[in-house]
């Protein structure tokens, strides 16, 4: 906690500045409510917010887990043979040039207003950094390690499981951390396009009724959710010694 002390102090200073700036009348409170109003709105509307928070969290966690499994598998697939790598890698790059927000309405048409299209959108946001970071980590195995494994007559899978995969974990976790920061945003994008429940829906409803404090309260929750997922990845990472 100590290492985040300076960031925490900076956040407090910025919030105080924001509070004073708005209360001093430099800006209309209806357009930019002060932090105290936002936290007050968060507290008083918590019961109505909670189901939306849980819905977004569920979509994020399922999507993030699926993206992790798919990203991991793709990283190994890219590593198995240069031929497969040359075939799949350009497709992965091309897939990233398509704005995911443009795909959201299509997914809605194909899979309806339920949880599935949101999960797919989270997967689309998170999959790429995990797969690319994982494949990068695997391809960067020290040449000397490859030589050692060959001299010991290790099979591809033995080399992968005993040496290459564990040594690529730092890179893999970097990808996971980037994906973790995208994950909640992915779910929100999906909910914006069409959903019954979730923070994306709540933000739209709050904005339509000019409850700017509630929009900010939702944004605050999104930040917290993203932080929780990122922190979970960091905690899992700390179990590995490398």
């Amino acid at each position, binding site marked *: 906690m100590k290492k985040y002390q300076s960031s925490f102090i900076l956040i407090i200073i910025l919030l105080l500045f924001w509070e004073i700036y708005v209360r001093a009348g430099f800006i209309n409170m209806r357009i930019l409510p002060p932090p105290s109003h936002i936290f007050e709105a968060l507290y008083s509307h918590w019961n109505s917010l909670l189901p939306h928070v849980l819905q977004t969290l569920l979509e994020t966690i399922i999507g993030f887990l699926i993206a992790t499994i798919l990203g991991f598998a793709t990283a190994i697939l890219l590593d198995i043979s240069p031929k497969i790598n040359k075939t799949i890698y350009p497709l992965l790059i091309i897939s990233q040039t398509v704005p995911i927000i443009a795909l959201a309405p299509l997914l809605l048409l194909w899979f309806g207003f339920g949880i599935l299209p949101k999960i797919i959108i989270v997967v689309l946001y998170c999959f790429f950094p995990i797969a690319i970071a994982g494949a990068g980590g695997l391809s960067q195995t020290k040449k000397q390690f490859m030589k050692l494994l060959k001299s*010991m007559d290790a099979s591809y899978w033995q080399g992968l499981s005993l040496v290459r995969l564990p040594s690529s974990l730092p890179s893999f976790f970097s990808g996971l951390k980037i994906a973790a920061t995208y994950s909640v945003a992915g779910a929100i994008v999906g909910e914006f396009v069409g959903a019954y429940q979730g923070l994306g829906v709540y933000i739209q409803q709050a904005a339509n009724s000019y409850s700017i404090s509630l929009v900010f309260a939702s944004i605050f929750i999104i930040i917290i959710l993203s932080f929780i997922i990122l922190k979970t990845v960091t905690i899992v990472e700390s179990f590995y010694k490398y």
Partner: protein
Amino acid sequence: MSAPKLIIKNLSKNYLLSNNKTVTALKNFNLKVFPGEFVSIIGPSGCGKTTLFNIIAGVEEQTLGTISLDGNIENSRRGKFGYMFQDPLLLPWRTIKENLILGLDIKKVSKEIAFKKALSLLKEFNLEKYEDQYPLVLSGGMKQKVSLLRTLLFNDSFLLLDEPFGALDQITRYSLQLWLKQVLKKFKTTTLFITHDIREAKLLSDRIIKL
């Protein structure tokens, strides 16, 4: 005199460059190594010492020539030599005893037997206090000791040591040279050793070859 353990005949290695020219790393190299012998190979950088070891260990293919081990021409030599490098190549996420059994994991030896062998080896060389430590806490010299024991545990009949002490300071290097002598005496291991240091070669070897 007993039959040679290793016979290398007319070994050559050419590399094809991207501009279609070839570079010769080894040319008509011949060598006989007898059981239990310690042979040092010295030579300037780039003369093909490491290429020779890579070919013997089966990591690279030769362009021409044959390699016989115990009287048989061996075309697939992987796993038949213990190969150790200048870099100890210990896995930072494995404890010392887990590092020691890497080769046995590859040979699919059961964990129980592998750990038994690793612990008895550590005990034999008074290193048992490090069994549950991670490589991070070891000095450079200690790491090389562990790396050598891992190589021995994988294959104690024929070692290929590629400048194992090259990155160490003089004092550590000397103590490790003496330690290596003691270890190899115990195992009666046949050893090929690459070094730049003529004094090191003189101290350790039965025979020195210039490449």
